[in-house]
């Protein structure tokens, strides 16, 4: 009883210990989570280590190496591989959560706590991990370090196989082939059947007449070498019957190779789009911040056209195939899928990246659904949605949208200015479209420290052909429009200036702290 209580106490201690959880999560992410931003560095490190280790073992076959090189391979490389193996074993599952679950269930049902039950699940899960192909490869990759047994050096091959774990292209190649498993198995059985038939036939016909065929093994070897179109020439038929078998097997071989090639090619062509899309998602997930644009219509095209200087990476999701094709043709990273589906957005690195979703489809219903879907996945996802009118704007706000854009309203405002105040129209148009002499930009005093401590009139914005529109202080004080000349610029202030883009760039260069 004391022992069981102690076990439960330890389980709860581990469950509630933030440091333990943090450390385990860190190792889980770095070993298993493909979306974790530091995993790529770990993978690169392991690949380098594997290549160095293979290099040493291969070089050693014919050349003597310095003892320190051997020590490096035996102690450092192998220790790292061993440590990795143990860490993978550790992070695979948690015993304490299973114990807590069993404890809660037993308390709730009023039955005695059974330690064996969580242990059984724990060991079964661990066993499934140990016997998984990747874990076996990891274990076997440690063995070549044992130098006294030279035969163990063949396990260097497992270090090569270990590369599979860190290279996604090979993984994808295997996954693609796996989709044609049925066709490939059928061809394999056909191949075995032909090899066996031809082997037996040549053995029966030429056992006596052909000095190179001593056994059935020789006959099967000849059949395989011939059907593969390799034809070493060490064994060749000598009787007319044998030659007939050869001709038949050569024709079958050519047909088989064509068949296998076409199966592999069709597997790749079927999966090509998916592979490309997966690659796009993998690439975008490596960024700390990115934008997901939902819908590839006129609005998105205009946004991308105007956002040449957009510093954040982005990906487009469009559900209509003809629009996807157009997007691909125009050179954008575009995925054919429905952004309103939970699974589609959850493929992105929601846990670690700062994601902004632009719901820019032509349908208010879709935009609201996309926004709700994103906010349901994570409140941290920032959503900017398009709406057709003020009523929809209210609904978007209720759905948790952070910013709503109303293209119809904005265009109508512009039409109104064009009709009622034609002089102002040009000023407004240039300001709103950030063009020509009305480019508005933000100059941050944090990155332009030479501005700090200066009075507004000391800076002489006019000499830079700029207008100072206002200053936003770093504290929560309201925006100061047209600040007085005596206003002193403080650290953290953001200056809103208007002018040509080149004037603003020049101004920023002058006041940038070197």
């Amino acid at each position, binding site marked *: 009883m004391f022992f069981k209580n102690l076990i439960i106490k330890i389980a709860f201690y581990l469950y509630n210990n933030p440091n333990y959880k943090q450390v385990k999560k860190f190792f889980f992410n770095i070993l298993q989570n493909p979306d974790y931003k530091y995993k790529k560095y770990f993978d690169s490190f392991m690949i380098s280590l594997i290549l160095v280790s293979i290099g040493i073992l291969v070089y050693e076959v014919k050349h003597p190496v310095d003892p320190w090189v051997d020590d490096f391979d035996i102690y450092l490389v192998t220790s790292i591989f061993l440590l990795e193996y143990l860490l993978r074993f550790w992070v695979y599952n948690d015993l304490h959560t299973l114990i807590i679950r069993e404890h809660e269930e037993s308390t709730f049902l009023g039955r005695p706590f059974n330690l064996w039950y969580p242990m059984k699940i724990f060991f079964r899960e661990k066993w499934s991990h140990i016997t998984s192909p990747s874990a076996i490869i990891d274990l076997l990759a440690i063995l070549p370090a044992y130098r006294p047994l030279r035969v163990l050096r063949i396990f260097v091959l497992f270090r090569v196989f270990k590369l599979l774990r860190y290279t996604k292209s090979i993984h994808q190649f295997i996954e693609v082939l796996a989709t044609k498993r049925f066709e490939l198995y059928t061809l394999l059985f056909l191949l075995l059947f032909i090899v066996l038939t031809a082997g037996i036939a040549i053995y029966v016909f030429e056992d006596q007449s052909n000095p190179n065929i001593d056994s059935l093994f020789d006959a099967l070897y000849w059949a395989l070498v011939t059907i593969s179109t390799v034809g070493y020439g060490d064994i060749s038929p000598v009787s007319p019957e044998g030659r007939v078998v050869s001709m038949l097997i050569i024709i079958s071989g050519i047909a088989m190779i064509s068949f296998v090639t076409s199966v592999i090619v069709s597997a790749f062509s079927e999966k090509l789009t998916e592979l490309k899309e997966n690659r796009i998602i993998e690439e975008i997930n490596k960024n700390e911040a990115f934008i997901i644009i939902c819908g590839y219509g006129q609005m998105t095209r205009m946004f991308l056209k105007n956002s040449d200087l957009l510093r954040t990476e982005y990906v487009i999701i469009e559900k209509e195939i003809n629009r996807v094709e157009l997007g691909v043709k125009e050179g954008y990273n575009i995925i054919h899928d429905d952004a309103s589906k939970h699974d589609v957005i959850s493929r992105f690195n929601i846990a670690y990246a700062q994601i902004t979703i632009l719901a820019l489809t032509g349908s208010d219903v879709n935009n609201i659904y996309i926004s709700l879907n994103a906010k349901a996945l994570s409140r941290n996802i920032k959503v900017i949605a398009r709406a057709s009118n003020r009523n929809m704007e209210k609904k978007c706000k209720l759905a948790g949208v952070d910013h709503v854009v109303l293209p119809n309203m904005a265009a109508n405002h512009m039409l109104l200015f064009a009709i009622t105040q034609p*002089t102002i129209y040009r000023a407004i148009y240039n300001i709103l479209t950030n063009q020509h002499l009305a480019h508005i930009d*933000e100059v941050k005093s944090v990155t332009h420290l030479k501005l700090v401590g200066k009075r507004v009139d000391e800076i002489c914005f006019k000499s830079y052909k700029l207008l100072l529109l206002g200053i936003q202080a770093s504290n929560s004080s309201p925006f100061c429009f047209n600040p007085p000349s005596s206003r002193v610029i403080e650290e953290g202030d953001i200056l809103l200036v208007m002018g040509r883009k080149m004037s603003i760039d020049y101004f920023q260069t002058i006041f940038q702290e070197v």
Partner: protein
Amino acid sequence: MHRTKIFIFGYSKRSIFLTKSLHTKEFRITIVVSNQEEYQNAQKEGFMDIVVIDMTDDNLLYSLDAKPIDDLVCVVEDSHFNVFLTLSLHAIYPQNRIIALSDSFHTTQKLKMAGASKVIDLYQVSSNRIYNILNKPVTTHFIDSLLSFEDDLSLREITIPDNSFLDKVMVDDFDFSAHKIILIGMIDRRLSEQFLFITSGIEHRLDRGDVLVCMGYNEDLDRFGKFILE
């Protein structure tokens, strides 16, 4: 200053706000539609002057009898037809100002070629707003304040009257900030009828009849408007 009449061709969700705003500003509006559905929608909103015609028929367009000072606004939802209508109107009323709504960069080019004096892209302003939201939060807030009818900050045209103290004064010699306003640009009638931004760096002399475009709070703009009339 207001134009005598505005013809709005087309009635849809794209233009409903414009039509209502012009209506409340007491402009004389004629809505021209091509089907009964649009007609009924416009009627439901309380518009009285609605004409249903086949807009492909030049004779019917001619019968609208627009005067050269009238504005023609093309906001038909079908962009192909909007371009065709702009072309037809430009052919029939070559002196009129035609303002058209476009839904893409390519349509904008075609509308300009068809004779539209001003083309407003449905998405250009919004796409730039998204860019600002993503990269320039202070700018976004500032522009929103400038455009919001509820906020005090606005742009205003102020014409320099005859015998004004500003007549023959160089822009640099007058301190607009003392009046808590910013001079954004002007129409310098000595040079052209075009609006010129002050950030161009050209030194302007103010003359009577010049139009100043100032930015500021309504209260300060009102005060400055009265001040230059004194």
